[in-house]
């Protein structure tokens, strides 16, 4: 384990911590991109360069950009930040945080358990092997993933369309 890993990991953890503590959504998203990039570095360290590339391109690139555009489109900036500040009181977060901390402790404990994996070297899995198995035994899953994306596109289009405003009957009270 080189220092690279620890640096990347530290950046990932810190930036994620920033993500979850920001009031402004825009800031959070930008920190998330940093986190994703550091995770991409870790992927690279773990011998998955192709995945690191995908992480950068798709996650940090496409998905995050989508979200940023979305936030910008709705113009959420200041007002939602105020809401967030209002909502995020210690009373709200202290309980779940402790619970999750406990969960994390358990997880770490279990991960550290023997039978520990043999202290092996990091094994490089090259993209070719990934491609082979993707289009070999997992071809059906790939097709399904394709279908999923297709459905995602159609669904997003359908839902995102600006329709004539129809208030659902269960929401009437909320809108009044």
């Amino acid at each position: 384990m080189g220092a690279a890993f620890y640096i990347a990991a530290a950046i990932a953890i810190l930036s994620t911590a920033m993500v979850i503590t920001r009031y402004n959504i825009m800031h959070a998203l930008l920190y998330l991109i940093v986190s994703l990039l550091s995770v991409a570095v870790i992927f690279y360290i773990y011998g998955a360069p192709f995945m690191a590339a995908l992480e950068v391109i798709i996650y940090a690139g496409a998905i995050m950009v989508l979200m940023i555009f979305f936030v910008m489109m709705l113009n959420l900036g200041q007002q939602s930040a105020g809401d967030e500040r209002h909502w995020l009181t210690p009373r709200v977060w202290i309980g779940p945080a402790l619970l999750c901390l406990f969960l994390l402790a358990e997880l770490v404990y279990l991960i550290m358990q023997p039978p520990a994996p043999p202290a092996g070297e990091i094994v490089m899995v090259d993209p070719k092997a990934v491609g082979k198995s993707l289009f070999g035994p997992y071809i059906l899953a790939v097709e399904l993933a394709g279908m999923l994306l297709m459905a995602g596109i159609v669904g997003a289009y359908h839902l995102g369309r600006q329709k004539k405003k129809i208030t659902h009957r269960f929401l009437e009270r909320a809108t009044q």
Partner: protein
Amino acid sequence: MITSTTAGLVLAGILFTMGLVSMLIRRNLIFMLVSVEVMLNAAGLAFIVAASRWGQPEGQVMFMFILAMAAAEVSVGLALILQLYHQLKTLDSDEASKMNG
């Protein structure tokens, strides 16, 4: 006891838990979506670590599927949030929870 595998898994665990905490404490729908992304990413990291541990491509394959899923999820999720925002004029998930069936 810290090997490369355990270190990676512990990192994945930390990231996941952070996502989880965020999920639990946030009321803003977009933040919740972001939290989901963090958790998915952590899960992906675990797969990559596992792949490197065993030297098998399956872990990376799984990560690709997670990626595809995340993409689809974000697009649909954002569209849904958009609808909700139009309907409710807020991103508060507690408001949306009044949508009892």
